[in-house]
């Protein structure tokens, strides 16, 4: 057929009509959809029988109840338990993403390993458990043979009082080394303050649920302070119902418009490190108005009024000190808070039925300041809020059995006589148990590391310590590092030998009294799945390692399994009598105890079985205890004036203890102005590292899921942001998103600028948790770690790092 015009038009029109009629194009469109979608590499999750396993989350010392949904042997989802007293219902974002920590193979060590590459390169080779234990055991045994067991050291990040941490301390004692160090946390500040003012070596117990005014001096209530599941649940309770009739008011003292500051009823923007001064300012107004609890002060407090000691010397009382130094105008100059706001806040505190002042610094992971804690606790005492419903309760520690006594061998006894490398417990740091930054300093300061072998348990000091990278430097000097971490974190990458622990969902572990909880609670987690790799519970590894070191060390560990130790300790709970192993949401433990609550178990074995199944042992709160013998201070009373500090000063000196004031003031809560910094002209701004609830900043890595919740004004590609007030940024000509270098005397990091009106002028706010060099592609190289440039001073008396006042400058990149 010839192609004519007519034919051409006919075929085009015919074709067009044909296409309309034929189903082919539609069929093809459909097929394209099917073809492009059925690729074999899109996973098809296998189905099977569904089940739920109840356990307890041990990712933080908060210990929430979790329920894990399983399909056959696979765990597919974590949810909060409604039958657990800490967090009836929800959990935090970190706990929610926990399955990625379990199943992300490139985040974990799949078995014992030894280093083959350069230190820090993360190149390891698989070895057997036998080999690994032999290498570690032989090394420690050799040091003991040489007569220097003190060259073995341990860094332990397990919660205070947990069975794992007791076993590690026991191992160090049996080996014969005094060098057992822990990263400083808020619990350490609490412990010290509690001993100095109340004479009690017990957990701090804030009865938040029964309070009607919560004045939080720096606690990141919504950023993960305390037991996050508990605080968030209480937050929901406080905001239930008609906003016009809300009974509970929350006041947040913080320098930045954080979530807590924004969501609280009042936000008081005090400069970081002046929270204590503000508390004393409130105390001043309360004393002046005379509306303090005179009954409590007369009966149960020491050092409020001026007093005369036995030698006839007249001492200044807390009252005189506060009236002299902390008038609203004076406090306003220190804190930057308007005087009328201080008066108003004090008025609220006096008017409330059951107010409470709580002290913290963000989450619990970093320490606070001792004098600040004392100031806040003095405020509670002044208002008579100690040992009262809705105030600060004074419970006894959990009645767990102590581990049986054992005899050190001769080598160990000699080693334990050697001084601690970090000088904790000496005249300069009389109340501290351990000072990890001094430990690193001692190593960095000597030509050859005095520590030969370092054991690291549940800690990542190379990343988490606010020390400007000092620990990382120390790690490089230590000849041999053994890591027990299940994760490929920064510290583990520097290790020579890995004896990997199981991930929390694979192991049995205990939770000892979540931070701040007002009732005794012992949590027990159980394996939700069998270990998916060749890893072992760290408790078992310690027992095995002790045997590998030698007979006399092994003799201190007469157990076969970690579970035996847990059980032996928990027996104490049974022997103490009472306690509940099941939670009834209708009778929460903070509500005054009903008459005769039934325990619900008959024997210890019965209790243990139920404890394993339910994961909890607790007792309802004892809201008001008999006053006699409650305060175990030298005076037997609550001490505004701490006689223990007085004794310490007498045997040492205020200068040694870094106290700038003299005389009686040094033994009481007071404000210490930071030492005049010569660098201020060169570094005019101040760095404040802040914590977020949706980013892990401790030794547990962030599950990659968390990065979905990070805003693009916090992390963009691989650069994180520093929040800066627009006015401050303007002085440097910086706009939103500009790249800058934040420089301190300790170093520099690159970040982008986020202009935030809620940032205090003159401060640079950087989030903690970014800037990993370990782990895998999800976390590695994302953002900057402010810890790397922190130059921390030392807190008076306690010696813990003052990480909130690093001087910095901004240099436009």
């Amino acid at each position, binding site marked *: 057929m010839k192609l004519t015009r007519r034919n051409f038009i006919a075929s085009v029109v015919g074709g067009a009509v044909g296409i309309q009629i034929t189903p082919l194009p539609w069929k093809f469109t459909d097929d394209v959809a099917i073809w492009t979608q059925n690729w074999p590499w899109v996973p098809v999750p296998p189905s099977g029988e569904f089940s739920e396993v109840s356990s307890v989350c041990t990712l933080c010392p908060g210990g929430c109840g979790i329920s894990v949904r399983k399909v056959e042997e696979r765990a597919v989802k974590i949810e909060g338990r409604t039958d657990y007293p800490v*967090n009836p219902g*929800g959990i935090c974002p970190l706990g929610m993403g926990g399955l990625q920590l379990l199943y992300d193979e490139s985040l974990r060590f799949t078995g014992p390993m030894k280093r083959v590459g350069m230190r820090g390169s993360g190149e390891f080779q698989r070895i057997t458990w036998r080999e690994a234990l032999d290498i570690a055991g032989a090394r420690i045994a050799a040091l003991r043979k040489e007569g220097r067991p003190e060259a073995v050291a341990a860094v332990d990040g397990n919660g205070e009082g947990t069975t794992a941490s007791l076993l590690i301390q026991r191992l160090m004692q049996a080996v014969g080394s005094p060098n057992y160090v822990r990263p400083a946390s808020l619990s350490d500040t609490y412990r010290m303050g509690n001993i100095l003012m109340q004479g009690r070596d017990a957990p701090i117990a804030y009865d938040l649920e029964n309070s009607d005014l919560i004045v939080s001096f720096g606690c990141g209530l919504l950023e993960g302070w305390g037991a996050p599941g508990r605080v968030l649940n209480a937050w929901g309770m406080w905001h239930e119902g008609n906003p016009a009739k809300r009974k509970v008011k929350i006041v947040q003292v913080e320098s930045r418009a954080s979530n807590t500051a924004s969501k609280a009823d009042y936000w008081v923007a005090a400069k970081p490190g002046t929270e204590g001064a503000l508390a004393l300012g409130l105390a001043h107004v309360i004393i002046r108005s005379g509306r303090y609890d005179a009954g409590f002060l007369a009966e149960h407090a020491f050092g409020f009024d001026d007093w005369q000691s036995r030698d006839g010397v007249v001492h200044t009382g807390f009252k005189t000190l506060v009236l002299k130094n902390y008038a609203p105008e004076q406090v306003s100059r220190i804190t930057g808070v308007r005087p009328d706001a201080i008066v108003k806040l004090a008025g609220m505190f006096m008017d409330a039925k059951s107010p409470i002042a709580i002290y913290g610094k963000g989450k619990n992971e970093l320490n606070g300041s001792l004098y600040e804690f004392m100031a806040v606790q003095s405020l509670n005492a002044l208002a008579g809020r100690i040992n009262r419903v809705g105030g600060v309760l004074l419970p006894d520690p959990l009645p767990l059995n102590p581990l049986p006594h054992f005899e050190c061998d001769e080598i160990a006894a000699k080693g334990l006589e050697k001084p601690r490398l970090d000088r904790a417990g000496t005249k300069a740091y009389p109340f501290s148990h351990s000072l990890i930054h001094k430990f690193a300093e001692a190593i960095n300061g000597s030509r050859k590391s005095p520590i030969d072998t370092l054991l690291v348990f549940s800690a990542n000091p190379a990343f988490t310590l606010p020390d400007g990278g000092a620990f990382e430097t120390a790690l490089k000097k230590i000849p041999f590092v053994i890591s027990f971490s299940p994760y490929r974190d920064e510290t583990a990458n520097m290790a020579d030998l890995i004896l990997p622990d199981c991930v929390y969902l694979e192991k049995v572990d205990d939770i000892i009294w979540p931070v701040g909880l007002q009732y005794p609670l012992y949590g027990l987690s159980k394996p939700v799945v069998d270990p998916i790799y060749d890893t072992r519970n760290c408790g078992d590894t310690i027992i095995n390692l002790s045997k590998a070191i030698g007979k006399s060390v092994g003799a201190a560990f007469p157990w076969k399994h970690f579970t035996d130790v847990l059980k032996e300790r928990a027996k104490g709970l049974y022997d103490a009598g009472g306690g509940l192993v099941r939670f009834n949401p209708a009778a929460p433990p903070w509500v005054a105890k009903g008459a005769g609550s039934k325990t619900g178990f008959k024997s210890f074995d019965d209790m243990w079985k139920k404890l394993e199944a339910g994961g909890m042992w607790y007792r309802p709160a004892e809201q008001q205890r008999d006053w006699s013998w409650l305060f175990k201070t030298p005076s037997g009373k609550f001490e505004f004036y701490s006689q223990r500090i007085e004794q310490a000063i007498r045997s040492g000196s205020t200068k040694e203890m870094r106290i700038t004031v003299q005389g009686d003031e040094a033994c009481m809560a007071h404000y210490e102005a930071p030492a005049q910094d010569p660098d201020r002209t060169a570094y005019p701004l101040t760095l404040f590292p802040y914590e977020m609830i949706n980013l892990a900043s401790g030794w547990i890595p962030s599950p990659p899921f968390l990065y979905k919740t990070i805003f693009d004004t916090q992390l963009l590609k691989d650069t994180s942001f520093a929040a800066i007030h627009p006015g401050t940024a303007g002085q440097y000509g910086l706009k939103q998103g500009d790249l800058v270098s934040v420089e301190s005397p300790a170093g520099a990091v690159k970040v982008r600028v986020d202009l935030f009106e809620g940032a205090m002028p003159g401060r640079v706010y950087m989030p903690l948790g970014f800037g990993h060099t370990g782990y895998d592609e999800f976390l590695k190289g994302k953002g900057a770690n402010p810890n790397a440039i922190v130059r921390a001073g030392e807190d008076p008396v306690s010696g813990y790092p003052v990480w909130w006042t690093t001087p910095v400058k901004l240099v436009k990149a």
Partner: protein
Amino acid sequence: MKKENDNGKPRHRYGMVIDLDKCTGCGTCMIACAAENNVSVRPDQSDKERAITWMRLYKITNGKEFPDTEVSYFPRPCMHCDHHPPCVSVCVATATKLDFNTGIVSQIYTRCIGCRYCQAACPYGARYFNWWDAYFPKDKGLDRYLSPEVSPRMRGVVEKCTFCHHRLMRAKEQAYAEGRREIEEHEYQTACTEACPVQAITFGDLNNPDHKVSKLVKHPFTFRLLERLGTEPKVYYYSSRDWVRKLGDNFLPGEYKPVLHKTWMQEEWSTKPGRDTY
């Protein structure tokens, strides 16, 4: 709209009320959602146009100077619009549909041809396009936590929040097995609702007067996002703060009317200096 379907059975209209006073911006809802619905995590989640977040938090500030600044958050799932959902009317492949019996706007991945018309039409940005296959590299083994109740998506399709439709299926199956035809309020709750540690999210049947949501939506502090578009979203927000409610829509200056409701405003509740007072 009719309260009954063609069979004379009650029509459900599942919806949600999110209390922004309670919401702390912790992001647990986002993670619960991603974990429940097999949403994968790619190494870079900072490109928010490509990162898939069926539930997404938006951060807002009141714009005031220090120290009167306040931040707040809008958790945003799919709004499951009840009146001509814009995505449904534009879909050429009938891959998305408003279910008359549940009020849920569905998404059928195998029908989707990836034209992204719905994504453009959605006023809430609740729809996400899969530029890549679900990211579960074999050597990582992350596919081991995948739930068999939700199929992982392939590249080239659009996905979004389904109000955890599989949970409705699960609850229904349970009810049928027990000889019941209707499910209880607590039997069907979305993953984000259950996960919220401050119980800021309430989920239920808006047509059922006994469900908590149907009471909450009547509250004067309750509002919806871009309400004036007329799409009738079934996700409601609740806030006692005026500046938050004001950001729920694009108001001309002076157009926004603050909530003044006597029953709810008897006492002074907003005490923070600089916070809105009436």
